[in-house]
C-alpha cells in the first residue's frame, strides 16, 4: 500500500507536466520568443524583456481578476472601463479635491471594487448573464468617468506617483514587481485556500457545488469583486505610467485580458485553468506586440497576426486535451 501511490503519483506528475494546461502556453511562449529573437537583434536583451514585462503589467494584472471570473464560468467586460474610471477618480481627487494622494489612490481602488461588487450582485443575486451585465456597467463606467473629468485628462499629479509606473527596485520595474506579487497572491488564493477550490468547483459544476453546500452566490460576488480590485490596482500603475487620469484609457483592454486568460489555457467555460497560465498568456501577447513592433511590422498586419495566433493556439489546445 505504502509504495504504490507514490510511484503512481510520480508517474502521474510526469504525465501531468506534459498534459498540464501549462505545457502548451509555455511551448507557445518559447516558439514565439525564438521567432522574434531571430527576426530582431534587439529582442533578446535584458532591457527589452524588462520593457515587455512592464508593458504587460497592466493587462497582466487585469487578467488575474479575469481568470477568477472565467474560472467560475463568467466573464467581465468592464475591467478596462473600471480601471479608467478608478484612475480618473484618483487623479481628480488629488488634483481637484486636494485629497492626499495615497488616500485618493485607495479611493480609486475602492471604487473599482464597488463596480466589481455591482457586477457580482447582478450576476449572482440577479441571475443575469455576465456578458450583458458587464457590457452595461462598462458603458456606465466610461460615461461616469467622462462626466467626472469633463472630457479632459486630469494632470498635475505629484511626481512620486510615476514611481508606480516607471520606478524600479534594483533593476526590476515597480509595475512588474506589483504584477508578480498579484500573481503570487492569486496563486495562493486559488490553489491553497478553500475559496479557490470553490471557485473551481463553481466553474466545474455550479449546481453540484451549490447542492453540496458551497456558498455559490457569495463566491461569485467575491470573484467579481476581485476582478474590480485588480482593475483598481491596474489603475494605480496606469496612473503612474500616464501621470494623469484618463477617462478613455484602456479601451479594449478587456479583450486583451480575456485573450491572455484563454491563451494561458483556462477554459472559457470555467472550471479548469491556472493563473500561472494567464501570466504566460499575457507575456505571450506582450511579446507578440513588442516583437512585431521591433520588426517594424505594419500595425494593421499586427492585428491579423495576433488574431491568427490566438485562433491557432486555441485550436491546438483543444486537440491537445
Amino acid at each position, binding site marked *: 500500500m505504502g509504495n504504490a501511490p507514490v510511484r503512481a503519483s510520480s508517474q502521474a506528475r510526469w504525465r501531468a507536466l506534459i498534459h498540464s494546461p501549462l505545457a502548451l502556453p509555455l511551448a507557445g511562449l518559447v516558439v514565439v520568443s525564438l521567432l522574434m529573437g531571430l527576426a530582431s537583434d534587439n529582442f533578446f536583451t535584458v532591457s527589452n524583456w524588462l520593457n515587455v514585462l512592464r*508593458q504587460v503589467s497592466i493587462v497582466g494584472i487585469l487578467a488575474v481578476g479575469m481568470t477568477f471570473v472565467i474560472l467560475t464560468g463568467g466573464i467581465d467586460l468592464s475591467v478596462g472601463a473600471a480601471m479608467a474610471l478608478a484612475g480618473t477618480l484618483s487623479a481628480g481627487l488629488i488634483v481637484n479635491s486636494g485629497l492626499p494622494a495615497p488616500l485618493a489612490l485607495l479611493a480609486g481602488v475602492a471604487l473599482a471594487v464597488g463596480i466589481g461588487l455591482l457586477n457580482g450582485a447582478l450576476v449572482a443575486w440577479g441571475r443575469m448573464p455576465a456578458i450583458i451585465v458587464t457590457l452595461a456597467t462598462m458603458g456606465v463606467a466610461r460615461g461616469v468617468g467622462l462626466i467626472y473629468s469633463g472630457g479632459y485628462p486630469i494632470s498635475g499629479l505629484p511626481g512620486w506617483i510615476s514611481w508606480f509606473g516607471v520606478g524600479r527596485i534594483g533593476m526590476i520595474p515597480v509595475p512588474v514587481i506589483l504584477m508578480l506579487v498579484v500573481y503570487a497572491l492569486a496563486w495562493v488564493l486559488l490553489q491553497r485556500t478553500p475559496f479557490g477550490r470553490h471557485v473551481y468547483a463553481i466553474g466545474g459544476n455550479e449546481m453540484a457545488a451549490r447542492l453540496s453546500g458551497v456558498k455559490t452566490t457569495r463566491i461569485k460576488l467575491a470573484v467579481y469583486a476581485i476582478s474590480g480590485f485588480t482593475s483598481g490596482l491596474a489603475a494605480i500603475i496606469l496612473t503612474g505610467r500616464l501621470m494623469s487620469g484618463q477617462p478613455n484609457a484602456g479601451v479594449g483592454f478587456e479583450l486583451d485580458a480575456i485573450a491572455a486568460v484563454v491563451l494561458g489555457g483556462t477554459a472559457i467555460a470555467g472550471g479548469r485553468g491556472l493563473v500561472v497560465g494567464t501570466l504566460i498568456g499575457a507575456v505571450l501577447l506582450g511579446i507578440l506586440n513588442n516583437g512585431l513592433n521591433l520588426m517594424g511590422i505594419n500595425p494593421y498586419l499586427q492585428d491579423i497576426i495576433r488574431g491568427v495566433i490566438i485562433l491557432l493556439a486555441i485550436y491546438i489546445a483543444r486537440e491537445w486535451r
Partner: protein
Amino acid sequence: QELSKLKIGMSFQEMNNPYFVSMKKALDDAAKSFGAKVIVTDAAHNVAKQIADIEDMLQQNIDILLINPTDSAGVEAAVKAAKARNVIVVAVDANASGPVDMFVGSKNKDAGYQSCRALADAIGGKGEVAILDGIPVVPILQRVEGCKQALGEYKDIKLVATQNGRQDRSVALGVVENMIQSRPNLKGIFSVNDGGAMGALAAIQGSGKDIKLTSVDGAPEAVKAIADGGPFIETTAQFPRDQVRVGLAMALAKKWGARVVPKEVPIDVMPVTKKNAAGFSW
C-alpha cells in the same frame, strides 16, 4: 429671425480630447452671449453615428451646423441632408465632402512642417528620427506630409520609423517604448498630436535617453510639460476656440445675408516653446 431663437448644432468627432472640449466651451460661451440654443453630439470616431447624430439635429430644426468630421468623405450624406433643409454648414478643424458653406481649420501642413523644423534643429540637424502617427484623417495626414517635407530639408536626418500611436496616450506609450528598444540611436520623435506626445514623453522619460519630442496642438498639459523643460521641446499650437468663433461668425454673416463669405479660412498656427510657453493657453 431673432438671434436668440437660433439653434446651433455641433457634431464632434470625439469629446474626450481637451482640444475638442475647448471648442465646445468656446461655442457655448459664444452662443450664450446672444442667447442661442446649442446642441452638441459626440460621434466617438464612428462615422455612422456622426451621420445619425446630425440627422437627429436636423429633426430639431437647427439653423447652423458646425461639423467636425470624423471622416471627410463619410459625412457627405449628412452635409447634403443639412443643405437640403437650408441649414448653414461649416466644417471645423477638418473639411467635409459635399456642399459645405465654408471650412475653418488650422494650417495643418504648416503645423507639421514647423514642428519638424524645430525637432531637426534641436537635434543639430542630424540623426535618426521617428514619426508617431495617428488616425488617418486629412488633418493628421497633412501634418505628416508637412513633417516629411521639413525633414527632407536636412540631408543628415534619417526617418527610421513610423508607428501608429492612435493619438492615445496609453497606446503611444507602449509603441514608443518599443520604438526606443528597437532604435537605440533614436534622437527625435514627432507626434501628430499632443495626446500621443504625452505618451511618448512618458516613454522617453522612462528610458532615460536623450530624445527630443515635438508635436502639434498646444494642449494645456503639453504646454506645461514644455514650460517645465525636458525632452518635450515644442508643440505647434492650433487655436480651437478661434476656429469655432470664426466659423460661427461666418455662419451668422451668411445668415444675415452676406454673399461673399470665403469658402475656406485657414487659421494660423503658432509654435510654443519653452520661451513662450508660460504665457500661452487656448
